[in-house]
């Protein structure tokens, strides 16, 4: 079978869509008050550092997904079970995204539709694209990257044109708030959404030009960070810190306020579309990562065989894992603080350190 390969721009588009995914719509970094946009930027250097570590490991083992080089570096006895532990974390995070999308849709206009229908339709789409393979996925991402950029441009332009932006909601940023921004940046924003890029450690083996990997990933990360920061700054300036922290979906609330010349109004559709696209790509990447790791661990050559089980697990856990949305958010806080840093930061840094040490002391046979 021909090895599927993806190009620079495709990887770039996938990373940006993945980063924007849900982070664009749900509030992130609540502790930092109105300085959320600062903390997104403050977390960027840490994010870049993490990505450089993923890239370094990839360049050391260009043909292996993360679970593959985990076994090489730590030895099969430690690496294999550790790799296995990645799978449920990825699946759970995928299902969390699904849950958030489903709840936004239900609160927006599907109050009579059962959540299982909404979620299963999304899962069907995700499974379809995973069946098609990573190449098709990358091409679709390219096209949707452009669509998302156009929609984002229109939305931002309209919000500004409607005169809703009040800069006094953003400035001044007091010294105390800088500290808060820093605190919410590390580890929260550092891990979500930047650290989640660990999923791409399973996609990078398909990347065409290993030389360019640093440039592409860092550029994509910086762009998405700026976009996120800008969007959240706009939301914050329109809503104010108080409303921003209380609404479930600040972007949705922001866009409903738009009214230009009594003609351009009710652009909610754009927000819903952005969310659907973002969640779709984020979930697909998560599911792909889970599939790829599982396939690597259990030596399954045909990835397509794993798509259905992964899809079903994600679908079921999306509405079984939490009773209601507040409980879901509370789970999310714990998950973000206690569990997610391990696969996203701890393990890669550990791998990096052990790999360097083994290289240094020539411990590879």
């Amino acid at each position, binding site marked *: 079978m021909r090895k599927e390969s993806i190009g620079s721009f495709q990887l770039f588009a996938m990373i940006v869509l993945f980063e924007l995914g849900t982070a664009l719509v749900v509030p992130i970094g609540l502790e930092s008050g109105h300085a959320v946009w600062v903390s997104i930027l403050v977390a960027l250097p840490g994010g870049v550092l993490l990505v450089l570590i993923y890239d370094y490991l990839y360049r050391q083992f260009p043909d292996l997904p993360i679970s593959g080089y985990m076994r090489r570096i730590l030895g099969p006895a430690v690496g294999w079970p550790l790799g296995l532990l990645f799978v449920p974390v990825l699946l759970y995070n995928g299902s969390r995204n699904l849950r958030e999308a489903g709840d936004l849709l239900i609160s927006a206009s599907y109050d009579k539709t059962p959540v299982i229908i909404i979620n299963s339709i999304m899962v069907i789409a995700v499974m379809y694209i995973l069946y098609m393979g990573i190449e*098709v996925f990358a091409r679709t991402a390219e096209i949707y990257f452009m669509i998302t950029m156009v929609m984002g441009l229109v939305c931002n332009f309209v919000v500004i044109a409607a005169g809703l932006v009040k800069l006094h909601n953003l400035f001044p940023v007091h010294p105390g708030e800088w500290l808060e921004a820093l605190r919410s940046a590390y580890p929260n924003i550092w891990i979500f959404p930047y650290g989640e890029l660990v999923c791409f450690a399973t996609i990078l083996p398909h990347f065409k030009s290993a030389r360019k990997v640093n440039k592409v990933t860092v550029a994509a990360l910086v762009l998405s960070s700026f976009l996120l920061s800008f969007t959240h700054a706009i939301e914050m300036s329109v809503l104010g810190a108080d409303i921003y922290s209380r609404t479930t979906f600040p972007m949705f609330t922001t866009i409903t306020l738009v009214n230009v010349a009594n003609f351009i109004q009710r652009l909610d559709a754009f927000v819903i579309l952005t969310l659907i696209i973002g969640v779709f790509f984020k979930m697909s990447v998560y599911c792909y990562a889970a599939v790829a790791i599982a396939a690597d661990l259990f030596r399954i050559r045909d990835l397509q065989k794993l798509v259905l089980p992964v899809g079903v697990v994600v679908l079921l856990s999306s509405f079984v894992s939490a009773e209601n949305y507040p409980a879901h958010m509370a789970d999310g806080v714990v998950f973000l603080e206690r569990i997610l840093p391990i696969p996203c930061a701890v393990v890669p840094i550990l791998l990096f350190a052990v790999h360097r040490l083994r290289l240094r002391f020539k411990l590879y046979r």
Partner: protein
Amino acid sequence: MPIRKTGSTPDGKKEGGQQPPLSAVLEENLEQIRARLGNSPDLVIRHYKSMIHEVQVAAIYINAITDKNLVDTYIEQAMKFEFPGEGVGIPAAPGDIYSYFKTKAVSIGKLKVIRDLNTLLEALLSGDTVLLVDGIAEALSGMTSGGEGRAVSEAATQVSIRGSKEAFTESLGTNIALVRRRIKSPDLRLETMTLGAITRTDISIMYIKGLAREEAVFNLREKLQHIEADSILESGYIEQLLEENKFSPFPTMYNTERPDSVAGNLLEGRIALLVDGTPFVLILPATFFVFMHTVEDYYQRYDVSTLIRLLRVICLVVSLFGPAIFVAALNFHQEMIPTPLLINLASQREGVPFPTFIEALMMECTFEVIREAGIRLPSPIGQTVSIIGGLVLGQAAVQAGIVSPAMVIVVSLTGICSFTTPAFNMALSIRFLRFGIMFTGAFMGLYGIAIAALMLVAHMCSLRSLGVPYMSPLGPFSPGDQKDLFVRSPLHFMKTRPRLTRSKRGRRQPGAGSS
């Protein structure tokens, strides 16, 4: 010129051994030919007796598929050895007659010596005239094909305001000439083969050497050779037999009846496939955006063409999603419609007994019926159908309270939008998909439409046409090709050919980039 022939070639070298050879006795040969053709009345056999060697000669051809004048010239020239002394000499022995014919006497094209019956029949059936001489187990065929054919006329399906008015005809030779006349390059290559076990249809692959990718030409040739069909009546047969993804609603080969369109595509490194008997020439590889472009885009000024291209894309989106979004907005997202309009729509729908989806489905189906009826009927009646269907039926349906006026507007708008897609087969696919998307819109609102669109784009990204990704140059993105995608940039800026179809020679205007 490396012409590769396949199938049983007229000189019968390929499968020469197994075929029944010709007999040396003239009468036996004629008897066999008559028997094999079932004593067909259009088979003409003329007998001559040469005076010099006293041998019987027969000229055989089939009436009406041969050019009468050519046949006469051929026979006349062949029998010239009757009158020696005109500087042509006399054949020494009866056995030398053919070589004498070939080298000295006959000026007709494509002379071939045939040794077996099947090849002879094939030559006969494709319009050749065959000479048989008594005492020699060989025959001589000369190309005399002709007969009645349609003259080159104006393009009927792909009309343009500016540009060539010529369109292809049903004759392969004429079609090749029409393209050759536009590209006078020695690099224009032509390969012919015969396909279809019964129809024995001639097919030509045309490409420009150095511009088309060698491996694409090779692949196409391989695929064509593996086609197993007993009949090829139209290029559509080949299109369907070659398709890589059989279950996709999207066409992966472009067809055109305009020679200038073929020439333009050849110059972009694509390959044309001409089939005898149809004016529709296949062009491949064809990506999605090839179907959205017309030749006229390049004849008009770039700014106008760009706007028209954008208009076409918008119309495509409307014709695909229009009714679906309308149904979704009315059923799920009433808040998206401005309140006065919503009140208006609600009051229009007051007396309508059906749900919006059923209403839309009924109107769409009616529209499709009217369209189909309009195509099939002779043109004078066709217009009556559209008047009755469009005006009377639409108006009456509204007044009878079966559909709301807004629905009529939406349906007719999408109908008209679907006609702006230049390629008819693409417009058909879009129209077909519209129903599916309308269903998801009615079932799940905008969310359903968004998911359907995602899956549709994913599906389109998975398609390939002769190895080229269907959505290129958008996915995979190639920045250099954006100049001729949604916009049509000025010709000065179009210095390179499309990346995925071209081979090494990328530049269009040599030297233009150096300044």
